[in-house]
């Protein structure tokens, strides 16, 4: 029995459910020698805003027990820089490209889509409304349903391509945001961005990150993400891209059972670049073992 691993995020077809978490995979070339980019269901690139952005001072990351903190600060080449430097590389692959976008103010979200939308290689947009590392840049939008909805509507008006708001995890009721995203015209949502967190050096009394705060990622956050995906799945009918500590195929499968249609491998890329391949193979082997013929059949099958 052949297994159909393909899934759809709006009008975008992914050959399998697996993408990468924005910020953990650069813009494509960085992991290209280690990972076959054609194997991925989609490539989600590092967050892009309209202009070049410097990002934070160093130290930008800090290893914690079981995971890591990052406060990279969304540095990037800007939309034009992305088109010039990376689109020619990415277009060589038959893997759709999800561009993660952010802005310092609401208008920026529209501007960056305007600048990118003409590029065919840009297949979809993931809208970062939840980055804990930048004073501007979305975190406020991710925690207030009104401005959240307005940003999504703004982006919706700018493009026909699939748009995927990325939700903030530190909200009491993620279902509200999931539903608001759907109502505002989003094709899917992604859950979760890093959890706001901090570490302090007890010898120097200084925060370990130059930005003081950062976001926690890796295995510690998976149980948090699973619940958020579960809640969002119950609250809305658009597909969910689930991420947060996926290190093994079993993790990805758990996300899908909870309600994720697609899954993203993030921090695990740093630890073991074979994770993507193992997850794709592992999902397929699991489906075969369970007598399922398509990845989509697994989505939201949790008995709860």
């Amino acid at each position, binding site marked *: 029995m052949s297994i159909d691993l393909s899934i759809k995020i709006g009008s975008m077809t992914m050959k399998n459910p697996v993408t990468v978490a924005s910020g953990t995979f650069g813009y494509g070339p960085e992991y290209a020698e280690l990972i076959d980019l054609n194997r991925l269901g989609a490539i989600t690139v590092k967050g892009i805003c309209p202009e070049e952005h410097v990002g934070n001072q160093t130290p930008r990351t800090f290893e914690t027990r079981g995971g890591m903190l990052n406060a990279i600060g969304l*540095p990037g080449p800007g939309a034009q820089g992305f088109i010039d430097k990376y689109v020619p590389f990415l277009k060589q692959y038959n893997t759709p490209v999800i561009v993660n976008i952010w802005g310092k103010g609401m208008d920026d979200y529209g501007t960056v889509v305007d600048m990118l939308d003409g590029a065919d290689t840009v297949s979809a947009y993931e809208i970062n409304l939840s980055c804990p590392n930048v004073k501007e840049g979305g975190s406020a939008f991710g925690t207030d349903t009104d401005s959240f909805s307005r940003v999504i509507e703004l982006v919706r008006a700018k493009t026909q391509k699939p748009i995927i708001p990325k939700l903030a995890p530190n909200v009491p009721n993620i279902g509200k945001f999931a539903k608001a995203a759907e109502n505002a015209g989003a094709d899917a949502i992604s859950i979760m961005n890093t959890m706001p967190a901090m570490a302090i050096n007890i010898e120097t009394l200084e925060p370990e990150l130059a930005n003081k705060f950062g976001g926690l990622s890796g295995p510690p956050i998976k149980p948090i993400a699973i619940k958020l995906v579960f809640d969002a799945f119950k609250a809305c009918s658009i597909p969910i891209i689930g991420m947060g500590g996926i290190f093994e195929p079993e993790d990805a499968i758990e996300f899908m059972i909870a309600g994720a249609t697609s899954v993203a491998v993030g921090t695990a890329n740093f630890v073991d670049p074979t994770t993507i391949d193992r997850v794709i193979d592992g999902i397929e082997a699991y489906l075969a073992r369970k007598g399922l013929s398509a990845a989509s059949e697994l989505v939201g099958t949790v008995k709860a």
Partner: protein
Amino acid sequence: MKQEKATVLEHDNFQGEYRILRLAAPVVGPMVQPGQFLELQVPRLGERILRRPFSIYQAGPEGAAVLYKPVGRGTDAMAAIQVGDEVNIIGSLGNGYPEPDPNKLPVLVAGGYGNAALYILAERMEKKGIAFFGGRSAIDILLVKEFEALGWDVRPTTDDGSLGTQGLVTAAFDPWMKEQDIQSLEVFVCGPNPMLKAIGDRAIEHNFTAWLSLDKNMACGVGACLTCVIKRKTEDGWEWARCCKDGPIFESREILWDE
């Protein structure tokens, strides 16, 4: 670069607190260029997930070796590595040192594990020159005999005078530098930041070339995450450059040091 399941051939005390870890790595070994590094996954590190970067001391068709000192959780946990163990590595990484200019006198300046990081360069360079090695005490100066055996004129300096000149490495470098045709020098540096900056400042002031190996804490090691950045000067200011990808080797003039 490749990811490889290397096998431990040797794991011993080397000198002082440093240990040598030699790996059978027939995929990565042959691709190693001077000044490159590995991202090594420490076996059984438990709940600390990131790989640790180590400069490549020796490399060839059969594999590679690193010299490392226990300084924290990962390097401490490496004590448990046994001959025959499998160690997962990604390598070889970084831009490495450029081809030496055959018209210049090569000079090495190193400290800490920097001596190990320069060994492959020193080995493969046709012309041998002077090597200034600095450290706290004799036991901290790695590879003096090994570099001498390659034909290098090694000039050690120690804070406590237990080997060579007493003082920082500049205590030996500066008087020697004054006697040289300075612009004929090409200096390759690997050591603690103050050493890099000291030589870098002299390179700018006296107009010679100095290649500095900058180490910053890393997460991915391959240029994707943007953790390991330094400020690289540009015409109108500066830009971020990744030590793991655009570096770790930078020419002294490129570097905008934090105050």
